[in-house]
């Protein structure tokens, strides 16, 4: 047997980990108050559609949750809150359901084939729209500027072009990657005037900016619990009383007959609690986020060359979002360096294979692929404190230097240069 060339280490090195979580836009951890009502409800669980007293009590609790959520987001009545499994389902339901409703319940020979949406929507919207296109929809993609804000004049012109042939327009309230807030009030007013159903994806905006469903002129609006400290697995589609989208899930006729399935009381109650905590004192909460966010942004801009803030500044940006590109760094390398130091961040939005690709949002803002690959998102939440932002600012320069040395994937590897 040949000798083994595998060197041994005497002791296994231990990594000191101080977990600092700056990825609330992916999922925000559950505050104790939410956890308490959630677990208490799990212990009490009964089917709220059951006719006995225990079932009726459960029904009361879920209806209370529904009312609380309706009040918090400006729905006219609690009947406008349709619980779903989350944002993706609500987005799919809104687009497909409204498209079908506007076309007589059929994909054949649609009278209103047009679907308007922006280039920077979440994939739950973009991929639904792409699927509708395969079913005969005419998709109109609305452009954004370099800061990721919808070109409002162009969007309104498209909306006014053929409203009678338009099934639905869907625009997010704020972008999940770069945090740019969109002019949804203006779109809503025009859509209402023209009689075109307007869907808002408000998943990221909830708990950060005011949302008034009735005042926005929207037909439908998606919200979800886990971005604000509620459980994963429940969200809601706010749905105008007059709207009757085609059902996507058929069954027992729950939720106005458009979203069948046994109701998740524990999820709804916890969701309502999370909504209460995140919107109850929104102005104060948003001011706290904004102060931390601006500390983070100022800190990065004053210490790191080649760091460039994506999206808008000030009031045009979500209070809890900071997103940068770092010239010459792969986002993967930055994430690795930060994770190794106990800081959880994101290269953009997570995808199924865990692979970060140049973000469609950044490309839509006009960035080149290398710049788009150099992105890192820092998103704050209810438990983020100043010391955590400072800890990030302390380690980031070294992490960026290291990532810069590691270079871009597009560069020729050192071993291949000047091969002779």
């Amino acid at each position, binding site marked *: 047997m040949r000798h083994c060339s*595998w060197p041994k280490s005497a002791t296994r090195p231990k990594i000191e980990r101080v977990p600092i979580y700056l990825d609330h836009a992916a999922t925000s951890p559950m505050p104790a108050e939410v956890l308490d009502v959630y677990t208490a409800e799990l212990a009490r669980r009964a089917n709220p559609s059951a006719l006995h007293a225990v079932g009726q009590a459960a029904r009361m609790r879920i209806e209370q949750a529904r009312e609380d959520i309706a009040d918090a987001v400006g729905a006219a009545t609690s009947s406008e809150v349709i619980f779903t499994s989350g944002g993706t389902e609500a987005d799919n339901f809104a687009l497909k359901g409204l498209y079908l409703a506007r076309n007589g319940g059929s994909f054949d020979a649609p009278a209103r084939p047009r679907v308007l949406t922006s280039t920077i929507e979440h994939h739950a919207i973009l991929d639904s729209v792409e699927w509708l296109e395969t079913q005969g929809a005419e998709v109109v993609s609305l452009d954004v500027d370099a800061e990721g804000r919808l070109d409002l004049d162009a969007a309104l012109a498209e909306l006014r072009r053929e409203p009678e042939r338009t099934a639905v327009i869907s625009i997010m309230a704020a972008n999940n990657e770069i945090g740019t807030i969109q002019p949804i009030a203006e779109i809503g007013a025009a859509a209402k005037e023209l009689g075109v159903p307007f869907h808002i994806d408000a998943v990221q905006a909830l708990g950060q900016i005011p949302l008034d469903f009735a005042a926005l002129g929207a037909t439908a609006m998606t919200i979800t619990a886990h971005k604000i400290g509620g459980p994963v697995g429940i969200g809601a589609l706010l749905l105008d009383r007059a709207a009757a989208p085609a059902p996507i899930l058929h069954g027992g006729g729950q939720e106005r007959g458009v979203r069948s399935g046994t109701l998740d009381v524990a999820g709804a109650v916890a969701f309502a609690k999370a909504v209460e905590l995140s919107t109850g004192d929104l102005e104060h909460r948003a001011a706290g986020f904004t102060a931390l966010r601006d500390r983070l942004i100022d800190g990065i801009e004053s210490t790191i060359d080649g760091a460039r803030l994506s999206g808008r500044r000030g009031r045009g940006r979500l209070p809890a979002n900071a997103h940068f590109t770092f010239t010459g760094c792969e986002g993967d390398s930055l994430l690795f360096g930060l994770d190794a130091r106990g800081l959880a961040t994101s290269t953009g939005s997570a995808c199924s294979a865990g692979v970060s690709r140049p973000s469609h949002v950044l490309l839509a803002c006009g960035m080149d692929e290398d710049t788009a690959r150099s992105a890192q998102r820092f998103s704050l939440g209810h438990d983020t404190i100043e010391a955590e932002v400072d800890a990030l600012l302390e380690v980031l320069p070294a992490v960026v230097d290291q990532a810069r040395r590691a270079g871009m994937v597009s560069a020729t590897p050192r071993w291949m240069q000047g091969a002779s």
Partner: protein
Amino acid sequence: MRILVAMSGGVDSSVAAARAVDAGHEVVGVHLALSRMPGTLRTGSRGCCTIEDSRDAHRVAGMLGIPFYVWDFSERFKEDIVDDFIAEYAAGRTPNPCMRCNERIKFAALLDRALALGFDAIATGHYAEVIRDSEGNPELHRGEDLAKDQSYVLGVLTGEQLEHCYFPIGATASKAEVRAEAAERGFSVANKPDSYDICFIPDGDTKAWLADKIPMRPGLIKDAEGEVLGQHDGAMTYTIGQRKGLGIQKPAADGKPRFVTGLDPASNTVTVGSRADLSVSHLTGIRTSWCGPVPADIGAEPGTAIDCEVQIRAHSDPVPARAWLGDFVAEAPEHEVSPIVDEVEVPAARPAGQLMHIDVDEELSGVAPGQTMVIYRGSRVLGQATIDRTAKDRLGV
């Protein structure tokens, strides 16, 4: 040491990662995303590159308690491996994409990134061994299990790269042992099938895949004397040494089977001949590289050749040979290039580097330009070059 283990999601790299952890190193698992549009589930005998494979790797990393990341090398892979593969075929050559991947991705782009991010080395699940000599210089050797030995596809590594490479399962006596260890460790991948196919060709049908990428033009099949024997649908789908599926009606004069002996992209001609016509005794290679220092005794004349063995395919037998060096050339020797190449995206030309000349004692059969010749001395890999041309007779004496 801080070790990055490239984890494909297969049994070999899983056990490699486990052994690195057991040896006491600080280990991080990285799965390379090489496809822009990865399939959801593994199919056939491809061993990586689907989301299922990535999840398998992630699961093993979780069991080992090591951090795990998926890094996107898909753009590089497309440019350096897939486009190169197509361009090489379009130019009438037969490339080895796994070697290209080792040369340009795993032990180049990935190693670069790993070292810059503070790792000391990378480890993979290859069946090969790095043995340090008395001065600590690394030598690349065949894996213990000769049936699984992968030293051939690692022949492109330089000494500098080898300094940062570990192959933790290379000294294992057999693959069965690796599988048993994986099962003992509770890895769900213990019984995952071996991979044989090229990872980026989903159903393993290389010819059909190429036909989709390279414009096919019908042309003539001729014998060495230029007599037209038939027609083909596109020269690129033929391989040197191919016997079946030539579609020649007219039997050979001697009644013996015919083989493809040459592909000429410029004239779009497939040449056929007898088995004897396939035999070669001299190989000229370009882009020579060495797994460590250049052998001290090798010269630039046939008379100063070194004795070695040459292997021309991943699993062919090595044959005794003599190797000597040729000139340094900036570009590969001129070839008539197929007009088809203009329609295929070809990566920028790479320098041909130093030429290597090989005479073999026993004739080799079915050698195609583009294949890699790896030279060994016993179990040790000395170096490699890409076969550029062959000759029937030896150049030396």
